[in-house]
């Protein structure tokens, strides 16, 4: 079949399978239908629920302002799909174009969209992780269970990790008067995402709101009582904190295990794809029929030196799913690149935090509006003489301007005056990100064979 005929056939009666029934999966499916896909659509999701929204789970839900099981995502349109919910995908056969399911079923596809997202990284010591009172927070079931414990009035909540989720949890606890200890390996909260200058502001927010914040320490062990309930947390500074609820908030692990051995370029850092959302196989060759979107994707971004970015951002999931879906059923000349400028928000301790661009790329930061001391400001990050990112605390409405500055490669340092430029913001300072040269746990690829015709890449899965 000539390519255009194939595409016509695909759009009319092809089979598209979406693995991952959360935000990206749903928006992708809706886009497929909106753009005229009339064939068979199957949605596979490991959770037993229709797509729901996750950001409220660490905010309104923990405060009791929204019910954990009522954060369904609004549907933009009918998608007329066959839903396979509560069944995880366990394998992929690229040649036969088949997805294997946990219940033994197999689903065939002509085009595949992978949007399996991430899961909470568990506490590495399994016996300790099993103690009653130890939680992670990613799903609505996690949120429901945690909410029940918070309502019961725990003596002390211990949060391991002061990233965004950990900080939001700590904030929700303090708002309800629950004693909280937060332990963070870095020197301050949010350091990985926003650097030490902003992290220092976040640390003040924690402390002013009554969080017992411990930085520069690691949790070495969780101690249980004789009946298997968590009782105390042991820290690397040899202190011990008694707590009856422990929330492990150590970031996320990408859901790519099911692709091990499939031949896709998938690993702990996600699934590599091109800017058009087509997945790479592990040899670095792009596939034609497998697309990726959302938290699990890793794609090159022209604005940021073509670095492969993987973004756990709500807005990215939507934008990337729309691009992926469009490209899945479009001829190559009509395909679009995913050029969304990274952006995320958080709300904690009564402060709205929003960021655009890629702050960790910025070696320097300057406060162009407002002041760190007042906790209302815009900070701009610079990289190689250009503006690469911005962050705002309670100043969201200005970020649109800085996004345009990032998009047009505006120079850094920012020289122009602004309506609220303070003396402290005139000179850039080191943004103070942790040393990126830490060992990673990525997969390894080695080369075998001696001549160009028999040279082969060999894929070694990562050891988690």
């Amino acid at each position, binding site marked *: 079949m000539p390519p255009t005929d194939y595409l016509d056939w695909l759009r009319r009666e092809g089979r598209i399978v979406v693995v991952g029934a959360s935000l990206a999966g749903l928006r992708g499916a809706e886009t497929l239908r909106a753009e005229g896909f009339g064939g068979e659509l199957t949605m596979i999701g490991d959770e037993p629920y229709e797509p729901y929204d996750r950001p409220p789970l660490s905010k309104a839900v923990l405060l009791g302002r929204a019910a954990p099981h009522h954060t369904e995502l609004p549907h933009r349109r009918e998608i007329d799909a066959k839903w396979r919910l509560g069944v995880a995908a366990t394998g992929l056969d690229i040649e036969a174009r088949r997805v294997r399911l946990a219940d033994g079923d197999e689903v065939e596809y002509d085009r595949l969209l992978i949007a399996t997202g991430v899961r909470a990284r568990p506490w590495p010591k399994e016996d300790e992780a099993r103690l009653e009172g130890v939680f992670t927070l990613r799903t609505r079931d996690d949120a429901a269970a945690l909410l029940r414990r918070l309502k019961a009035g725990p003596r002390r909540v211990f949060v391991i990790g002061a990233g965004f989720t950990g900080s939001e949890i700590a904030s929700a606890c303090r708002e309800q008067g629950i004693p909280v200890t937060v332990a963070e390996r870095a020197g301050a909260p949010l350091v990985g995402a926003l650097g030490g200058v902003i992290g220092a502001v976040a640390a003040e927010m924690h402390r002013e709101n009554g969080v017992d914040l411990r930085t520069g320490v690691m949790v070495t062990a969780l101690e249980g009582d004789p009946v298997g309930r968590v009782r105390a947390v042991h820290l690397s500074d040899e202190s011990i904190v008694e707590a009856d609820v422990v929330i492990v908030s150590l970031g996320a692990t990408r859901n790519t295990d099911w692709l091990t051995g499939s031949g896709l370029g998938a690993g702990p850092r996600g699934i590599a794809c091109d800017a058009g959302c087509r997945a790479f196989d592990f040899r670095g060759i792009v596939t034609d029929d497998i697309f990726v979107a959302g938290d699990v994707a890793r794609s090159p971004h022209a604005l940021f030196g073509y670095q492969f970015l993987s973004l756990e951002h709500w807005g990215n999931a939507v934008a990337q799913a729309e691009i992926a879906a469009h490209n899945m059923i479009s001829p190559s000349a009509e395909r679009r690149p995913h050029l969304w400028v990274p952006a995320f928000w958080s709300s904690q301790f009564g402060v709205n935090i929003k960021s655009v661009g890629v702050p960790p790329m910025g070696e320097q930061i300057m406060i162009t509006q407002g002041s760190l001391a007042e906790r209302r400001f815009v900070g701009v990050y610079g990289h190689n003489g250009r503006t690469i990112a911005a962050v705002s605390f309670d100043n969201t*409405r200005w970020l*649109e*301007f800085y996004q345009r500055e990032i998009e047009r490669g505006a120079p850094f340092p920012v020289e*122009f005056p*602004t*309506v*609220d430029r303070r003396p402290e913001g005139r000179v850039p300072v080191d943004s103070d990100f942790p040393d990126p040269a830490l060992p990673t746990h990525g997969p390894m690829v080695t080369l075998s064979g001696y001549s160009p015709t028999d040279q082969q890449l060999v894929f070694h899965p990562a050891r988690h």
Partner: protein
Amino acid sequence: MTQTSMLRQITDFANRANPYPLYEELRKTPVLHEEEDGPYIISTYHDIEALLHDPRISSDESNVTVGGDDELSGPEATGLPPSFIRLDPPEHDRLRRIANSSFGPPHRPHRIDDMRGQLEEIITELIDGLGDAREIDLVDQVAYPFPVTVICRLLGVPREDEPRFRAWVDPIVAGLDPDSRTAAESQRTAQEARLQLGMYLNGLVEQRTKEPREDMLSDLVHSSGPDGAMTTMEVLSTAVLLLIAGHETTVNLITNGMLTLLRYPQYLERLRDDPGLSVRIVEELLRYEPPVQLLPQRTCIADLEVHGVTIPKGSRIWFVLAAGNRDPHRFTDPDRFDPDRQDIQHLGFGSGIHSCFGAPLARLEAQIALARLAGRLDNPRLVEDPPPYRPNAVLRGPRHLNISVDGIK
């Protein structure tokens, strides 16, 4: 220049009934600067949107360096400091936050929604009051008294004082009209009226200081959040702003709305059958006939380059919201009134940190007024089209809207 400048044409009353062809012309020169000390006029959607988020744009009159100094503009001249609409951060943010703590989320998330019942009562009373007239002036009989009553109640200003404050509000509003020929004198009158209105409100403020009530004036007087309290002068400036902005714009929104619905009767009919359509109708009205046509009070605190034109620091800048709202590069078929439009991110309430403070109230008022009028006016017809307009080019709307009806239901 042989032709009349665009600036003069915009302010020319002869163009008030339909300025949209002018705006179309205006958009052809996205940054229009006609006279040496005159404003830089920005008229395309994306430029307005971008510049309203640009931290080099200032609302503070003291940053204007061209066009002769206006010795009357400083606070010394009036005794009343500028309200937050004429301030930049951080002062703007602080005052607006305090005002908002008695108006909207997070502190008072239900204040406006809780007024729904009162709004329905007020509009019902006004429409009942039309009796069995066969001809009504929508402005004088409904569109004006409705928001006046609402803002009086919300702030805590006695409704019966309306004739008194009317005498001060009119010159203040006239002072917003950027007709440069009469600028100096109308500015002076406006400043004087603003002081008078402030003194009148001070009487109420003194009462509320002693005996707080359930109204915004009491809240402003007794504000004590993390931002501290407003000074008495700040309370007065804010109260003047809220009182005026709280009704002058809504009158036009409701009147422009009824006028438009009478010009597009299919939507009036649909609204009669489905009052819920008022939400979409009001959003589209804010795009199609925005009550605030242009923002003439901005400047820049650094040289700005827009489309290759350098706007020097201290220049006056106008944002013609109504032109941006009809920009074909942003909205398909922009000159068509289409409440079914999905893509409706209009500039009717501005954008950025100064975006309309009272928007949630204005929306609710217009939705309720238009839905009730559609439901109760029997066979309404325009008596004259176009209707007579108010002189103001900024706050544009009919002075009267005479409608004949077969009765009131």
